[in-house]
């Protein structure tokens, strides 16, 4: 118990150092710190608990196995994010999910754009529908845009951090966010 308490006080760098030396407690503390961020990032891609749980475990196991190669040039969490995104992207590619994505068919979109008061059941229902359609629209983005959008819009990473995770320039991140938003705006237009 005392050991765990001490672990909680250590900064990431020290925990990484301890974990590299073979301390499972140190690595477990790193897991505790970042599990929610990793989980929520992956969940944005998979949309279900089962796959997210598997991929979150795989992410941490991949990180553990690769610790000896981690030279700590980047922050641990940036490195971990990168592993989570790569692991998830590989999974999605294997499933050929992007090929099977359903596009928003024009004929499925509602024609009316009735506005309701914020307290009415209609408004709540419309809000819920908008949320669902947004999720579908994010899910249908090209993977590169989706990954960028998830990291910035959902996970609040800065452009610079996202660029480091995705290994691209900040200009590319900025461009992808712009394009992603344009696509989302177009797809959700009937629901605004």
């Amino acid at each position, binding site marked *: 118990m005392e050991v765990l308490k001490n672990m909680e006080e250590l900064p990431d760098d020290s925990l990484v150092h301890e974990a590299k030396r073979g301390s499972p407690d140190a690595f477990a503390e790193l897991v505790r710190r970042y599990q929610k961020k990793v989980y929520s990032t992956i969940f944005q891609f998979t949309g279900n608990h089962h796959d997210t749980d598997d991929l979150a475990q795989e992410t941490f196991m991949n990180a553990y196995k690769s610790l000896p190669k981690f030279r700590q040039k980047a922050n641990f969490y940036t490195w971990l994010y990168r592993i989570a995104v790569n692991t998830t*992207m*590989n999974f999605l590619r294997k499933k050929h999910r992007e090929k099977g994505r359903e596009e928003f068919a024009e004929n499925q979109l509602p024609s009316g754009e009735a506005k309701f008061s914020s307290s009415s059941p209609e408004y709540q229902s419309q809000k819920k529908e908008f949320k669902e359609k947004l999720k579908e629209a994010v899910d249908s983005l090209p993977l590169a845009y989706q990954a960028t959008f998830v990291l910035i*819009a959902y996970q609040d990473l800065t452009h610079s951090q996202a660029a480091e995770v995705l290994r691209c320039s900040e200009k590319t991140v900025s461009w992808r966010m712009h394009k992603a938003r344009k696509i989302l705006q177009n797809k959700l237009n009937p629901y605004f």
Partner: protein
Amino acid sequence: MKCNKIEKWLSDLIDGELSEKKKKEVEDHLQECSLCRAYQEKLERIQTTVKEVDFGRVGPDYWEEFPSRIRDRITSFKPRHRKRRPFAWGWQWAWVGAALILVIFMGLYVMHLLPRAEQEVYAFSLEDSLEQVFQEIGENEELADLFNMVLLASIEETLGETDREIVPGLESFSFPEEELTEEELIQLDSEIKKEIKS
């Protein structure tokens, strides 16, 4: 000012990545352009809704148990003994390989310069020495492998990027720019150029 430029800047503004100077330009433009104001409202609604999306309903028990599950897995995880890299032994003999290669190249160079008639007069025959080298290599598999290793190592050293963090899965994954259409790539290029100029 073109609205598509403002749309791009609005995206940066939402992310908190727009400079003060550009913010002012955006504000001025929005006062005049109802289309961009409508676009901004839509982006803000998307952003607000994103924040409301739940990340799956996972109870506190899950978070409490998850680190223990990983801990159990890593304590039972036994790293596979890495097979000794082929040629790993060779680094000790790298200088031998390097010397041999040097001898061969020097030999070939000198042989090229020497007239054939004189070549026969020389007591030291490069052809013979080269033949000896190859014979020696031929008798020793380790030396033969060493030649490959030295050449491969020099190629890797030339091509490899050694200062990158190694990320599992990266070798099989990269964001495909091929997902962008040619038109998008051209547009991206021009946007970047504009951004650099501004």
